[in-house]
């Protein structure tokens, strides 16, 4: 509807302009011609007086110009010379259009004329019939009217075609989204024109969004399944300890049992918090907390925190920066937590030396930094590395230790939050856990 109306209005505007121009043009030309004629007659009068004027008018009659209307008046009853139908008396007048001819003359027709005074009693009338011009005008008007009608029809048809086509393309995408809303997350919008036009572009983007939603739903399912499964054990332990505490008749033993129960509660809380953080990191909910900091400062601050603990465990902890990396957008809190998980693992399973290393790597996709925790312990066998990264994935060698097995999953999630990834590599000997992050300004 809107398209049709717009097209019609545009055309109308153009046509209106055209019409106006033509009309003004025609009138201007008529006025000029009438003036030129009057000038000729005036010249004739000046050269030769009345006789000259009469001769000039006679010449004009002889030329056979059917549209000519001229006359000369001397104040007597009627003009003394004329061509065509003229009024009996006239007054000086500027260019005007009127139907000339007296009452008795039923051939009065529209004339464009002017009347000039050339002497005390002498007036000349110069004019031209505008019949033929009028006919031309009418013909043009008819043509313009047809144009208007045609433009409505064509415009309407064109608009209809466009609307139908656009609706059809958009409905394909809307239908896919409807099917998803009805319950099938795997539905996608069809790509109709080989992916080249704007509608296909829209469809592709909608599909990418649906892919992402499907992934998030899967993550959510995994998370809630994990919750249900892995909260059972600590909860069972907690229940047992509280039950035991309730049964203790001996006050100090009861207190000790309650303390043990409290510890179990804290463990559960930590697990829950980590799970939530992993979920949030993967949903990119915290991405807004990036601030520009030097990556080396993160390593140095962590080293400051862990050094005494490492020393007490007989482990040498140091920081090495292979390159000078300027401040870049990083989430200090999450990266510190991720690295602290890695340091924790290294302290627990590593050997006698831990190095926190900052490195810079050139890759085909640009530069990236690596924040690494390198130890010289037993390491992780290559075939076991993916198992270690899985949520709740704990290697057999670690099964007896504390912790829920979520540490590495969180590190991976934090790395992905920054657009990077976690890599477990051989430190020859030992394990090198590297958080690779793309360098961004």
């Amino acid at each position, binding site marked *: 509807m809107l398209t049709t109306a717009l097209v019609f209005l545009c055309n109308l505007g153009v046509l209106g302009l055209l019409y106006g121009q033509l009309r003004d043009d025609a009138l201007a030309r008529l006025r000029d011609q009438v003036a030129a004629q009057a000038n000729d007659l005036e010249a004739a009068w000046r050269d030769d007086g009345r006789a000259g004027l009469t001769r000039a008018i006679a010449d004009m009659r002889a030329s056979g110009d059917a549209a000519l209307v001229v006359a000369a008046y001397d104040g007597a009853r009627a003009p003394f010379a004329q061509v065509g139908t003229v009024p009996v008396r006239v007054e000086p007048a500027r260019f005007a259009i009127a139907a000339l001819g007296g009452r008795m003359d039923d051939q009065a027709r529209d004339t464009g004329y002017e009347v000039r005074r050339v002497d005390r009693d002498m007036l000349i009338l110069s004019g031209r019939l505008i019949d033929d011009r009028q006919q031309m005008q009418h013909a043009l008007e008819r043509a313009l009217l047809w144009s208007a009608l045609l433009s409505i029809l064509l415009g309407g048809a064109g608009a209809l075609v466009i609307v139908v086509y656009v609706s059809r393309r958009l409905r394909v995408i809307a239908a896919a989204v409807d099917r998803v809303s009805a319950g099938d997350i795997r539905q996608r919008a069809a790509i109709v024109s080989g992916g080249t036009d704007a509608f296909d572009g829209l469809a592709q983007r909608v599909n990418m969004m649906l892919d992402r939603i499907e992934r998030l739903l899967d993550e959510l399912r995994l998370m809630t399944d994990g919750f249900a499964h892995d909260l059972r054990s600590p909860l069972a332990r907690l229940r047992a300890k509280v039950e035991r505490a309730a049964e203790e008749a001996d006050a100090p033993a009861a207190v000790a049992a309650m303390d043990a129960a409290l510890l179990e*509660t804290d463990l559960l809380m930590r697990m829950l*918090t980590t799970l*939530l953080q992993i979920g949030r990191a993967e949903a990119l909910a915290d991405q807004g907390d990036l601030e520009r900091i030097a990556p080396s400062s993160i390593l140095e601050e962590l080293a400051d925190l862990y050094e*005494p603990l490492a020393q007490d465990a007989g482990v040498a902890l140091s920081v090495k920066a292979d390159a000078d990396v300027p401040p870049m957008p990083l989430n200090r*809190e999450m990266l510190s937590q991720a690295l*602290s998980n890695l340091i924790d693992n290294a302290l627990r399973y590593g050997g006698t030396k831990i190095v926190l290393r900052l490195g810079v790597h050139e890759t085909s996709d640009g530069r990236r930094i690596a924040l690494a925790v390198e130890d010289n312990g037993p390491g992780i066998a290559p075939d076991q590395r993916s198992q270690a990264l899985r949520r709740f994935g704990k290697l057999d060698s670690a099964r007896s230790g504390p912790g829920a097995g979520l540490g590495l999953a969180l590190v991976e999630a934090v790395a992905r939050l920054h657009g990077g990834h976690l890599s477990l590599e051989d430190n020859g000997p030992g394990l090198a856990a590297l958080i690779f992050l793309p360098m961004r300004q």
Partner: protein
Amino acid sequence: MTRKMLIIEDDPAVSAYIAKGFAEAGFAIDVAGDGRDGLFLASEGVHDLIVMDRMLPGMDGLAVLKALRAAAILTPVLILSALDSVDDRIAGLRGGSDDYLTKPFSFAELLARAEALLRRVDAAGDAAPTNLIVGDLEIDLLSRTVKRAGRPIRLVAREYTLLEFLARHAGQVVTRTMMLEKIWNYHFDPGTNVVDVHVGRLRRKIEDGFDTPLLHTVRGAGYRLSGDGIVS
């Protein structure tokens, strides 16, 4: 003078738990079960501290806070909330609260932070001290040097920072979480006893060779630096 506290919390169990704990610590307690009542009571401006939950029926905690601050009520507010993301914490602190503690919490943590807030308010009027004295330990804040019974004690930078923090809270319980937040600026739980090891080092340096212990361990809570020899 008895300190007055207002608890704005809709869960009666949590509310009673907090009230009991603070009553035992010598506070007079007012309780409100929703935002509107809380705002009404807080507007009287007679409390020394407000402990407030964020998720309240009727009027949300942050809205209550905004209204209070707009009415120029400057009572320190400690927010207690299950909303624990960094964004939530920032929103709470920016909204005008003075501290933010996530649920579940240990009462010892809550008490320690409440005391810290109250001391901050008490000391707000005083001119900045140039040194801190705890028992026979003296810390010169300008030169960053430490002496005990006149003998200088050599501390590395982080040991000094830790000691200064404990000294500013002398006589009060300082929890591990508080130390991690205020000294190392970390809001996560490292899951190991990293902080304890730091405190242990510091304790050895300021107590070895002296008679009176200054740095006391408060079981289930944290640590306390004081010269009175009382361990709670």
